[in-house]
């Protein structure tokens, strides 16, 4: 031990040395005096070299986290105390500060802080004896706080849009999770627009990045829903999704957020605050991407309802016309009994009225019927379109192509129909105006 100790002092020779010369051998040896610096250095090296890094168990007291990020605390048992320091680099990975009096085990190396002569343990890992360790402690604490604030309340959960236009995704840009999500959306709903904000999803600072990404995406115009995703991993790997910043960003998001973090059994704070928790990234993608077949069926059903709606309108007009006609005749008969002369006039009037009505609304009915046919999945001709052709097979398109008396043929679905233009053509746009003035002139 003596030799070893001396080895430690190579850079610091004693202040006075016993002289080699025999003539001075009899003089009383001067005491060897060390500087404080030397002795602290020697002690530190002794400590560091003679004890390996080790686990120490005890009760924690006076845990303080400095603004610098370093943590200082004391570990004690019934008989002794040990000063401990955990530097920022390691302390930053600590999910929570331990409670006063909590039983801990810490891993680290013993040393002496030379400047103060203080004996201390430099801690690199800190764990609790309880199940789940510091992670569970931090999780439970944050969850309790969020529960109190109501952020995990099921009543806060917003429904996802059934037919989103744009989906925002927060995940690692090179991850399998992203590839899975994109594959699911491409298969189910390739018409969607997907906007990705890539982040780190583990390690110190991942939580802040994830939180910032959620806020960014929610602000992108058009984004209807945001997916936060990561594949499976250890609780330490998933820790970013358990950070308060993520919980806040998800809660504040103006659009619904789906969380698909880890595997089936992993539950994170992000999952609890999100509007929907999916078991995996792929499952999350399925919740935001409506299936193409389903949407197509939905559209077909809508088309049928539209058709039925219009048919109903048309039916109610027909019924109304019938009623009108009947009542006009009935009234007419009553008047016949009062005045035979007026009967003829009335009969003429009502006949004319009904004819006019039928002429007017009958046109509308055929238009309605044609519009209904447009829904039918038959070919163009089968939809009821007919193509007028002249004798040479040339297309006739405009009113000018139909002088009075002209013969032409109509091409319909299964053949040709001979036709003739029996009146003067009327241009469609000017239709209404011309009719009015024409009627006036006719009187």
């Amino acid at each position: 031990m003596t030799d070893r100790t001396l080895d430690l002092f190579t850079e610091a020779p004693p202040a006075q040395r016993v002289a080699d010369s025999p003539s001075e051998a009899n003089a009383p040896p001067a005491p060897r005096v060390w500087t404080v610096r030397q002795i602290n250095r020697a002690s530190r090296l002794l400590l560091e070299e003679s004890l390996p890094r080790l686990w120490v168990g005890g009760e924690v007291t006076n845990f303080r986290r400095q603004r610098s990020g370093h943590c200082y605390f004391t570990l004690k048992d019934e008989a002794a105390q040990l000063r401990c320091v955990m530097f920022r680099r390691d302390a930053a990975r600590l999910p929570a500060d331990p409670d006063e009096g909590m039983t801990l085990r810490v891993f680290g190396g013993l040393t002496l802080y030379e400047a103060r002569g203080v004996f201390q343990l430099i801690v690199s890992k800190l764990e609790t004896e309880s199940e789940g360790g510091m992670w569970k402690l931090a999780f439970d604490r944050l969850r309790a706080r969020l529960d109190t604030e109501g952020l995990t309340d099921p009543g806060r959960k917003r429904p996802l849009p059934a037919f989103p236009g744009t989906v925002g995704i927060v995940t690692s840009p090179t991850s399998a999770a992203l590839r899975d999500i994109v594959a699911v959306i491409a298969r189910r709903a390739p018409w969607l627009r997907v906007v990705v904000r890539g982040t780190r999803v583990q390690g110190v600072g991942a939580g802040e990045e994830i939180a910032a990404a959620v806020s960014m995406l929610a602000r992108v115009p058009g984004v209807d829903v945001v997916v936060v995703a990561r594949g499976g991993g250890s609780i330490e790997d998933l820790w970013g999704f358990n950070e308060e910043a993520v919980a806040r960003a998800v809660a504040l998001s103006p659009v619904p957020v789906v969380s698909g973090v880890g595997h089936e059994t992993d539950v994170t704070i992000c999952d609890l605050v999100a509007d929907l928790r999916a078991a995996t990234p792929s499952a999350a993608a399925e919740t935001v991407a409506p299936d193409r077949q389903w949407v197509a069926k939905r559209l077909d059903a809508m088309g049928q309802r539209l058709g039925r709606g219009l048919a109903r309108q048309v039916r109610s007009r027909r019924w109304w016309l019938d009623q009108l006609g009947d009542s006009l005749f009935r009234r007419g008969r009553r008047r016949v009994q009062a005045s035979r002369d007026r009967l003829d006039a009335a009969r003429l009037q009502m006949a004319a009225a009904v004819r006019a009505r039928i002429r007017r609304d009958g046109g509308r009915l055929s238009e309605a019927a044609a519009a209904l046919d447009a829904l039918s999945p038959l070919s163009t001709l089968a939809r009821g379109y007919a193509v007028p052709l002249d004798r040479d097979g040339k297309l006739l398109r405009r009113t000018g192509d139909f002088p009075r008396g002209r013969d032409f043929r109509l091409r319909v679905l299964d053949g040709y129909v001979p036709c003739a233009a029996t009146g003067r053509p009327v241009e469609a746009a000017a239709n209404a105006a011309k009719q009015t003035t024409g009627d006036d002139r006719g009187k």
Partner: protein
Amino acid sequence: MANDVGLDARLKRIEEIVAALDSDTLDLDEALALFEEGVAHLGQAREMLARTELRVEELIGPEGDAVGEMRVGDDEGTGGRDDG
């Protein structure tokens, strides 16, 4: 409505139209106009559904203000940077 109208907005509009067609207060011109509008929405929605290629964009820059086209392929191998 323009072509960039989302599926959701179109379906909502069609729902409104169907509800209107079920009411008795429309006159025939209105009913026809609504019906035609509904049919147009259906057509546009079907066109949208026929799209086959998924568009993926990436928000880039520290503030995420820029948008870039993103390729998410199988050619990047399995296991990403930090395997998310």
